[in-house]
């Protein structure tokens, strides 16, 4: 068990544990925090796999920006109490069971899929320079077209978020 493996297992346990924390904690704020932890763990995995750029982006964009937005909204709505009424037990059980069964089915389906080993040699494809090259040459179209996505999102935020629509 080398360091790599130790880190892998550690991050894995953290990721799964905090993911469970997201869905089990009764306080929305702690859910958010658990989710941020999960993101950090996932970023750790990225680093392990030499995807340094993505690891950084993940932390900055996801953990930093997006989750803060979530937190902001939760705070805005005063949902930080434990007040969320729980679904009844049966529904929760059904949720867990169906999710678990799906997990098992997919697992069973994929257990023989591939036995490739991830080599632990460092590669540089995950470096910002390489990614940038690929992004702005090969994938320039999606990059540009994403602007449409953001425009839509912007319109959405304006249209939906703006207050004071007069009553018809």
């Amino acid at each position, binding site marked *: 068990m080398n360091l790599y493996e130790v880190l892998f297992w550690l991050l894995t346990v953290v990721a799964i544990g905090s993911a469970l924390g997201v869905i089990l904690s009764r306080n929305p704020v702690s859910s958010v925090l658990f989710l941020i932890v999960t993101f950090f763990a996932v970023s750790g995995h990225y680093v392990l796999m030499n995807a340094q750029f993505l690891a950084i982006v993940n932390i900055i964009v996801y953990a930093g920006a997006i989750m803060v937005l979530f937190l902001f909204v939760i705070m805005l709505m005063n949902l930080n109490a434990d007040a969320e009424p729980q*679904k009844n037990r049966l*529904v929760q059980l*059904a*949720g867990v069971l*169906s*999710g678990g*069964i*799906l997990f098992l*089915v*997919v697992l*069973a*389906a994929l257990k023989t899929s591939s036995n490739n080993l991830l080599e632990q040699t460092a590669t540089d494809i995950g470096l910002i320079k390489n990614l940038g090259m690929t992004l702005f040459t090969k994938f320039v179209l999606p990059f540009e077209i994403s602007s449409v996505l953001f425009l839509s999102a912007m319109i959405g935020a304006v249209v939906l978020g703006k207050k004071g629509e007069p009553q018809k």
Partner: protein
Amino acid sequence: MIDLVWLVPFFPLLGFLINGIGWKKLPKSAGGFIGSAAVLASFAVSLGIFFEVKSSGTATVVHLFDFIQSGNLNIPFAFQVDALSSLFLLIITGVGFLIHVYSTSYMHDDEGMVKYFAYLNLFVFSMLLLVLGASYLIMFIGWEGVGLCSYLLIGFWFKRKDFTNAAKKAFVMNRIGDLGFLVGMLLVLLNFGTLSYQEFFGQVEGGQAVVTSSTYNWIAICFFIGAMGKSAQIPLYTWLPDAMAGPTPVSALIHAATMVTAGIYMIARSSVLYNIAENAQHLVAVIGLATAIIAATIAIKQYDIKKVLAYSTVSQLGFMFLALGVGAYTTAVFHVMTHAFFKALLFLGSGSVIHAMHGEQDIRNMGGLSKKMPITSTTFLIGCLAIAGIPGFSGFFSKDEILAATYGHNSVMYYLALGAAMMTAFYMFRLYFLTFTGSFRGTEDQKSHLHESPAAITIPLAVLAILSIIGGYVGMPAVFGDFHPLNEYLAPVVSNHGVHHLEHNTEWMLMGLSTVLVIVMIVVAYRVTKKANFAANTGIAKILENKWYVDELYDAIIVRPLGALSSLLDKIVEKLGIDGLVNGVGKTVHWASNRIRLMQSGQVGFYIFIMVLGITALFAIGFFWIH
């Protein structure tokens, strides 16, 4: 002349068309005149044809036009003129004419007289088609045609429900027989490829067709079923007494003289077939005999003047079938002829009585009419003597021939037939005595109006009375010498087959026996009617009065169950079963819709839950079922 045979049915057809189209506008007298004249014209042509056939003796087929032509099925519309058909032509047009003349007077008060003559002409037309047709199909056309006319005429007074019921009954029972006829035709067509008499009989006699005897028997039986319906034999006879609902001349023409003898004509025509089909022939004899006896027993206790005559007709038809059944074809035809004369006479006579009694038909309310109606009374007596078989009258000759032939065939049947003949004498004279002798039992009102009928009625009566006397002399019994012009005339077409010639002594004895017994029965009838009291019948008499309860029996085992079955099918099978099933599909869809709809609970969580389940299921199918 033979080429002009189409004129024979054409005149009545023309009469029908004129009267039929102008039934509202033509005056009554014109209708009567046109109707009678048309039949008279036919009679004239028929007479010409008769003599031509008599001299040449050959059968001629007159092809008119193509009728049904499909593949190798080819049935032309053709007439066959030979001894048998020409004889029937004479009977039909001759008796028919007399009855037309009679009707001009009898129906004079009826507003539908022109229509009546149209129907009557149509009947004559159909009957002529029946006997003239050169194939079974053309015969069938006439066969059903006369059934139709019978239906129309029985229900002539259509406002009376029981009359129209009787008409319907007649038609339906005829139809049952017709189905038999149809099957017979199809069997012939299937096995011989033709329906034409000449080709069919040619093949039967020539033995070209490879047909088993059971097929012959089946064909013969099927045809006989047809005859049962038309000629009112057991078990299809009950319509005939009810058919008396029609105007009396109609009863005389259709239900006594002509239509009901169609069955006899048909079997005589098919004698070649019946000679081979022995079992079927035997069946004919048995049914005929049974009908003769049963009908006679019923006639004994009837009080309606026309009902008595009706049952007597059924009984006489039974005799004819008995003759056919024992192979005495010409004898049967002989009896058809004589019967046409005397039965038409009797019916017309009864019509005259009813006319005089203003519609009264119950003989319990008559009596002593001979004083007021001498001609009617005399002619009626002649008719009775003829039907009873008093020597010298026509009935004697034909009936005696039948009895003799039966004796030669089977002595038991002979004695039974003799019994029926005795009953005939009894009920006919019971009828005569009750009607014409003794004292009048009707109302004073009726009594005051009693009168002899006008000439248009009495002249046909007289003519028929004469025919009833002399009509028998065309076929003398063998003991009186070998004088039998009828047999000679018919010989090219049909002759008795397998009839034993009796010893002269035996024949004398049989004649003597029947004559004596008949006279005894007349005397008995006289004694019985003398002290007639019309108290309610009991025991066997009641059963006889109620016609052996056959109508009730049919009602109970056929009509009612059929009605019940129909209602059951309508209410249960159709509405609940089949339609219910169809509607059930719709209802199921509706029900399912209402259930599946509930899945749309409005809860996003539930929707995602279903999605997840769906994904799981798809994975299960994709990975573990397909592989």
